[in-house]
Structure formats: structure tokens, C-alpha cells
């Protein structure tokens, strides 16, 4: 599957270094460009810094050195409104993190109401449309505790979309799911990719990477080792990648 990628860079990471307070060097000189409308899949062994990298992209984690730019705005600038920036880059978590005290609909509506202060009727209509899109319109009145993992993750995706982000970050969105529910979440993500959403996805689903990704990135020990199109990536002879793929496949 090839898609014409507009060459406009939406997210740009340059020489990003992250050293945690405990001395753990989680990111070493990571540079990556993500273009508008592109789907980038990041794979790598546990502890390689995939989550950390994703979290630096919307400032859930600060960086020690380097530079991150989102749609031309520097994250490190004192004048940058981090909250505004986070509106534009949504995040979907491995553990869903739905708000348990709100219904599915309430989860989707909360941020547009409280952050954007938009009209309630309008927000509600949009939220219902979003839940329809992820196939959960019949369960919009349910609390998260009454939803399966797959359903919760789909609500979480709808919740991110409600802020109309320029890009969506996914941190192992299917890793906490029972195998039979992985498909329904991946289907929603494939739909988003087709509609041209810019996505950065950390996942162990090689099928998804092969089918949907415009580029696949391999990280190991905090370094970005390889960055290729899916066809070239999965045929690569790179020894570190070979070793990793040998372990997971």
C-alpha cells in the first residue's frame, strides 16, 4: 500500500536526548521527521525507549537536550503553550486510561467542553458521531467498567479525536487486549490511516506495520537504529533488527 505523502513535516525531532533523574539514558540522539498524513510505526525490544520517545512528543516527558518541533512550533520555547500543543497531538495509551467516573459519551465530551468551552449540544452531536465511527454508538451511556478492553480502547481513540488533533500517538494500543479484541482496535486505526490522519504507533503488531505503515522505525537501547519503508524494513539484513525479529516472530 503506497500513499502519496505530502512532504510537509508535521513533527520533527532532532538529536533528542533523555536522561532520567535516576541516570537512565533512555533516548540517545534520536532524530525523526514525521510528515503530515504519514503513519510511522515504531518497534523495538522492551526498554528501548519507544514509550519515552512518544511521550516526549507531547511533553508528558521533558527532554534533556535536542529539539522537538510540532507544526513549526518549538516545544522548548518558553512562549509555547504546552496545553494548546497537547490539544493538537492526541495520545492513546496501552492501559486506555478512560475516566472511570464518566460514561463513554462523557469521556469523549469532557475535553471539548472544558478545554475548548464549546457549545454542549454541538459537542454532544460530534461525540455521538465519533462513537458511531468507532462502532460504539450503542454503548455511549455505559461506564468504562461495563466495557470490554477493546471497546474501552475504541472509546479512548474517539476521545482523542474529539479534540481534532493534527496527529495521534499510540503507545502499544493493543498490548493490554485479549487476542480476539485486537482486530477491532486495529480496524479503527486502519480507518484513521486511510482518512489521512498523521499517526505514530508503537506496536508489536507486525501485520499492522506491514499493511498500514508508511515507514517503520526500529529502536534499541535508546537509539533509533533503522528507519525504512515496510517492504525494505522487513527484508532488511540489519543484524540488530534480525536478532529482534527472530525473537518476536
Amino acid at each position, binding site marked *: 500500500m503506497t500513499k502519496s505523502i505530502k512532504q510537509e513535516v508535521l513533527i520533527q525531532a532532532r538529536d533528542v536526548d533523555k536522561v532520567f533523574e535516576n541516570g537512565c539514558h533512555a533516548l540517545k540522539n534520536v532524530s525523526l521527521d514525521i510528515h503530515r498524513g504519514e503513519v510511522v510505526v515504531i518497534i523495538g525490544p522492551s526498554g528501548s525507549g519507544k514509550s519515552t520517545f512518544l511521550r516526549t512528543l507531547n511533553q508528558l516527558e521533558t527532554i534533556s537536550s535536542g529539539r522537538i518541533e510540532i507544526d513549526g512550533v518549538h516545544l522548548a520555547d518558553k512562549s509555547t503553550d504546552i496545553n*494548546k500543543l497537547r490539544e*493538537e497531538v492526541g*495520545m492513546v495509551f496501552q492501559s486506555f*486510561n478512560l475516566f472511570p467516573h464518566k460514561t463513554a459519551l462523557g469521556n469523549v465530551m*469532557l475535553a471539548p467542553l*472544558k*478545554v475548548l468551552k464549546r457549545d454542549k449540544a454541538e459537542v454532544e452531536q460530534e461525540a455521538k458521531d465519533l462513537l458511531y465511527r468507532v462502532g460504539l454508538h450503542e454503548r455511549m451511556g455505559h461506564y468504562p467498567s461495563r466495557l470490554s478492553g477493546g471497546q474501552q480502547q475504541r472509546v479512548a481513540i474517539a476521545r482523542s479525536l474529539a*479534540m481534532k488533533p493534527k496527529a495521534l500517538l499510540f503507545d502499544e494500543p493493543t498490548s493490554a487486549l485479549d487476542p480476539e479484541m485486537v482486530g477491532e482496535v486495529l480496524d479503527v486505526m486502519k480507518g484513521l490511516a486511510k482518512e489521512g490522519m498523521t499517526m505514530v504507533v508503537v506496536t508489536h503488531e507486525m501485520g499492522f506495520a506491514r499493511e498500514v505503515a508508511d515507514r517503520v522505525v526500529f529502536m534499541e537501547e535508546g537509539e533509533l537504529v533503522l528507519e525504512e519503508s515496510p517492504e525494505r524494513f522487513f527484508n532488511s539484513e540489519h543484524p540488530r533488527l534480525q536478532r529482534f525479529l527472530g525473537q518476536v516472530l
Partner: protein
Amino acid sequence: MQTSSRRWFGHGLYLVIMAALIAGVYFSGQKINYSWHWERLWPYVINTEPQDIIAQTDGTAVVSASGQLSITPDFGGSPQIVPEYDKLVARDGDLIFQGDTIARIEGWRFGPIAEGLWVTIKISFLSLIFSIILGVIFGLMRVAHGQVWRNLAVTYVEVIRGTPLLVQIFIVYFFIGTVFDLDRFTAGVAALSIFTGAYVAEIVRGGIQSVPPGQMEAARSLGMSYAKAMTYVVMPQAIKRTLPSLAGQFINLIKDSSLVSVISITDLTKAGREVVSGSFAPFEVWFTVAALYLLVTGSLSWAIQRLEKRLAASD
């Protein structure tokens, strides 16, 4: 079937034990030749004796044809008109001196115990509101990023929890109260709020920390500020989790409010002490006072349980 009949047996046994306890109290009273006079207590709760209407000036009583009573003062001024009465004491033309009873009116008013109960409810309610405010503020400071805030909050909590409430009441009343010219009631509310606020702060902190960090991250990644994430995402969950411990703390607050009687606030406890010396019915008075405290604390825990059930909808 088995379990059901066992349960009924349990209830029955409970009733027998309770009856035995009450009988025990009754017979202990008999043993020390205590004569129970519950009827003496009643006027101290609600007084139904006819009440005297008192003349406010020296003058002459005038009863008009329609039966309206008024006092025309001897030395000019507007007459005192009695709008309503049930039984005349003064008659038309009587010479009246200030302080005389001129008529009686049926009706009732609250006795000292009921008034004490009201003061206790008022003090507890106000202190509850202020202790929630203090507790939330200091609880939030306790988990804030700034070290200054955390230190301040820790100091408050440790100082208050490490000193007796009675001493705090004296300090607030005699020191802070004098500096800021507080009346007794305000000083009492202040002391109780500050005291309970420290415990509420710890409960709130625990509640906030029990909410998984992913909740804050999810809220922040949707563009919410820290304050909004706290208000709409973390705090509602934290409060829900802490309701049972908050309920316990507020019940303690109601009971602790009895200590304000040391600065001469006539709350339920002080009213009880005063009534005992007037009525010579100490057992009745103290049992009644205890029952009234139980009524207030019971209503509060009932209300909080209702709230808990409402919030349990999302479980």
C-alpha cells in the same frame, strides 16, 4: 434455608442481649435508688408552659372593646400594644409597673437542650464546610510540584495532628481570638475547622495519590491544564474513594465539637451540664444528650452513604 434461619436466630439473640443491657441500666438505677423523672426533662427540650408577656414601662392597662390590650405609659411616649395573648392577667385600668406580667400566651419555645443541639449543629456544619475547604487546599498543596507548598502543607498537618484539640481551642480563643477580636462562636468554628482540616488534607492527599497517574496523563494529553485535570478528572475520583474516611472524620468533628464548651459556647454538652444542675435528673439528661449526638452523627453517615450509592453508578 439454613442460612436464613440462622440469620433470624442471630437477630433474635441480638434483641435479647439488647433487652438485657437496657434492663441492666434500669436495675442499676434502682440499685442506687435512682428515681427516674423523664417528665422533668421535657421542659428543657421544648417548653410548652404558657409564657408571660411583660410590661415594658410603668403605665396604665387599657383593654379596648375588641379585647386589645395596651399599656399607656405614665410619662408619655407611644403605648405598648400586645398583639396577641391567650389569657389576661392585668385588667382594664390597672396600674402597671415595668416588669409586671400583663398577659400569658400559650405556645412553646425551645428549651436549653434544643438550643444547645442547634448550636452544635451550626458549629459542626460551618466547621465541616471550612474544613473541607482547608483540607482540599492543603491536600492539593501536599501533592503540588513546588517544594514550598509541600513543606507548608506538611507543617500544617504535623502541627495540628501533634497537638490536642483542647489546647488548640484555647490558643485560637485566647491568642488568635484576642488579636483578631473574634467572638467565642467564631473562635470555636475556627479551631474545629483548622483541626479537622488537617485530617481532611491527609485524606484528600491519599485520595489523589490513589488515582492512577495515567488519569492525569490522559487528561493532560487532551490539552487540559493541571488545574482542569485535577478538577474534572482526578478530584472526582479521589473524593469518591475517600468518602468513607471523610465520613468518619466528619463524625469525629461532630463529637469533637463538644469540646468548644470549654470556651463557654452553650452547645449541646454545655446545655446538658447546665440542665443537670437545674433539673436534678442527671441520668435522663446525659442519656438524652447522647441520643441527640447519635441522631446528628447518624443522619450524617446516612447522608454520606446515600451519596456513596449515587456515585457508585460508575462501578
